[in-house]
Structure formats: structure tokens, C-alpha cells
């Protein structure tokens, strides 16, 4: 017995995060009943994206070429390398800061309890880069979860072996935030990471 096209679509939609049976049904009905043109476009765009988008050879960011735009750009400095967990983090940093160095994307974080170790994050590739390139500073921009912390520690050890300075983005009270409403651990971090007033 073959699976009907409808069942196949419902099942396929459920690969998206947060999409269960009900949501899949709603999406499916919308595409088939109200927006068949959009459905066709979505199908073609997905196919094209999957076919063309790959990981950058140098930093694991998404790209259609061998190198992503940041690695390919000659205007960006190569002596500062910022380590992030996901390509979305690059976009956030690009939009919010004037960072003009290069990136390395882990596509995850060390999570031993989920069986995710150094080899799953391309850290062998990063180790080769640290040896081969003239990196002066490694900026660690991993999340502030315990897994992000474990990842930062591992990266620090890698950098130490190559005599590279390591910095970590500051963690503290959000701009416009009030101390009273800042959670305890954030406040503790902000307090221990205090800086001279300039």
C-alpha cells in the first residue's frame, strides 16, 4: 500500500522544529487550499537551497561557494577570529557590532550528555586553522549555558596550545535593565566581570 501524497506532505512538514500533527495539518491545508502558487515556490526554493547551499570550507558558515562572504572578503582582518554556535549568531553580530574579523561556526556546542563531542563541531578544522594562520585573538561568543561554558573551556585550551590570546564576550545586565529585575546569576556574572569606569 502506497502512502498518499497528502500523508507524505503531512509527514514531511513535521521535520520542522515545533511542528506537530495539528500544525502540519494547518500548513498543509493552507498551501493546498489557499496558496498553491506559494506552495510551488516553496518547493522550488527548498530544492534549490538544499542543492546549492553548503558549508564554507574555512568557517562552516552557510554559503553557495567554497568560501562564505566573510572568509572571501579581503577587507576583513584575519588575525581576529570569532567563534559562534550558529550562522544566525554571525548575522546578529554583523548587525549589532562593527566587528571586521573573521568567524568560525561550530554548528552546535559541546554537549556530552547528548553525545556531542569536539569532532562533531569541526574543532579539528579549527585546530588546523589556528596552526596555519596568523591568529592573534580568539573571541569566544558561545551561549551562556553550561554547554557554552564547556565549549569555551575547550576552545581556550586549543588557543593556549598555539599561544593565542582568548577573550569572551561580556555577560551582564541588559542595557536598560534594572538590577532588581536581573536574575541572580546574571547579576553575579556582571558583578565579577566589572570594569574600570572610563
Amino acid at each position, binding site marked *: 500500500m502506497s502512502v498518499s501524497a497528502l500523508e507524505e506532505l503531512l509527514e514531511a512538514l513535521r521535520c520542522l522544529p515545533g511542528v506537530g500533527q495539528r500544525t502540519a495539518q494547518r500548513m498543509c491545508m493552507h498551501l493546498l487550499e489557499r496558496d498553491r502558487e506559494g506552495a510551488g515556490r516553496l518547493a522550488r526554493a527548498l530544492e534549490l537551497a538544499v542543492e546549492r547551499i553548503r558549508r564554507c570550507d574555512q568557517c562552516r558558515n552557510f554559503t553557495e561557494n567554497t568560501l562564505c562572504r566573510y572568509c572571501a572578503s579581503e577587507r576583513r582582518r584575519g588575525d581576529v577570529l570569532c567563534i559562534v554556535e550558529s550562522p544566525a549568531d554571525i548575522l546578529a553580530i554583523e548587525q549589532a557590532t562593527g566587528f571586521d574579523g573573521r568567524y568560525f561556526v561550530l554548528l552546535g556546542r559541546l554537549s556530552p*550528555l547528548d*553525545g556531542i*563531542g569536539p569532532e562533531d563541531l569541526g574543532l579539528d578544522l579549527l585546530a588546523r586553522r589556528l596552526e596555519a594562520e596568523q591568529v592573534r585573538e580568539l573571541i569566544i561568543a558561545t551561549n551562556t*549555558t*553550561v554547554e557554552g*561554558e*564547556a565549549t569555551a*573551556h575547550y576552545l581556550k585550551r586549543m588557543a593556549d596550545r598555539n599561544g593565542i590570546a582568548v577573550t569572551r564576550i561580556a555577560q551582564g545586565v541588559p542595557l536598560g535593565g534594572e538590577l532588581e529585575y536581573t*536574575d541572580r546569576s546574571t547579576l553575579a556574572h556582571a558583578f565579577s566581570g566589572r570594569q574600570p569606569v572610563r
Partner: protein
Amino acid sequence: MTLRVSLTPCWILHRRAWRESSVILDALTRDHGRISLVARGARRPRSSWRGLTEPFRALQASFSLRGEMGTLTGLEAGDGSPKLQGLALWCGFYVNELLIRLLPRQEPAPELFDAYTGLLPKLADPEHRAPALRRFEMAVLYETGVAPDLTRDAKTGEPVAAGGWYRLVDETGPVRTSGPGPESWEGQVFLALAGGQIGSKAVGKPGLQRDARKIMGRLLAFHLGDKPLYTRKLLDREES
């Protein structure tokens, strides 16, 4: 029947994202043992639980429990969160994986909870880390009712002699062997493990820590079956 619990001491062992904005917690509570809790909306940007649902943070949890999966209804920061970094953090992950693999759910284990609470700060202290881990590993075996008697020969029932040589044939305990070998250890290491004296100045034999680690590794392996701990593998690599 639904059990409602208000602000009880709790540690989160592991958590995973669930649906759009929720988290499923594997939590160790003092009075209700290891439980699964769903924290609805914990990943929403404005959730008051954000940043709290982290391992190694002393917490007070309120929840309702019915069947296998409970529902988190309140979460507050408790006192005395240890500051784990680097190797200490990795050891913390190891302990959590050990509990997740060996500790059955919903069986109250107040003594083990207290042992865990006492262990975490010691992980941050390089001198006390290894002995504290060995004592905790023994505590897990006692709690799950599978701790062997390390003071007696499992075959003959004779008391273990400090200067004799023993090996582990199975999980039942040390068995006397003719002499030193790659898989045999001196009786005093077993005795120190049984007495919780690993790391005390009285038992200062060189290599004792290493032997104790191997013995506990073997004992735990019998109970972990054919799927070894992933964190243990990483730790072995880190430390070598």
C-alpha cells in the same frame, strides 16, 4: 492521583528543548528522586525561568506529578550554586550522566541528593575532586542496591588483605589472584574504597587514586552494560 509539591530542593541533571518554547527537565529532587518535568514556555524570551533551567544551579522547584511526566509550576534560585569551570564542569557532566543512566525514576533518594549537593563544590577543587568522585560513585552503587562488599573475597568470603592482590571477575566483588597484573589491584585500594578513605592522608600509597578510578570504572561498567558513558570517554581523553 496528582502529587503537588511546593519549593523543594532540586538540581537539573539534563534538559532538552521540547516543542516551540518548552523544555523537558531531568531533575534530581531531594524527596521525590529523579523525575521528568516539562517546563512550559521556559524558552520564551520573557520567561522568568530562562537561565534558571540550567544544570549545576541550586534550585527550589514546585511541580505537580502524575504518572511519568510532571509539570513544573515554579522555579526559584536556591543558595549555594557551585562555580564549575573547565575540568570541574566536565566532571559535573560525568556525574549527571552517571545518575541518568543508573538511577531509577521516582524513587526518593535523600542521601544521594545530599551527597550530590556536597560533591559539586568539591569538583572545583583539584585536590579533592578525584576522591570525592570515587565516594560518590560508591554512593550511587549503594543507592541502587548493587554495591558489592569490597572488604571480602567474593569467592571465598575471606576478608580482603591489604597487601594481597585482587581482580574483578564480575560485579560481585574482588577475587584473590596470585600477584600483580594489568587487571589486578592491591587489597588496600578496595578497602579504602569501601571505607570512603580514598584521598585521606592515612592511605597515601602512590597510584592509589589511579587504581581506585580503574576499579570504580570496572564496577560501574558492569551496570552500564554495552553502552559506556560518553562523558567518561571524553574525560579519559582530556586527562591523558
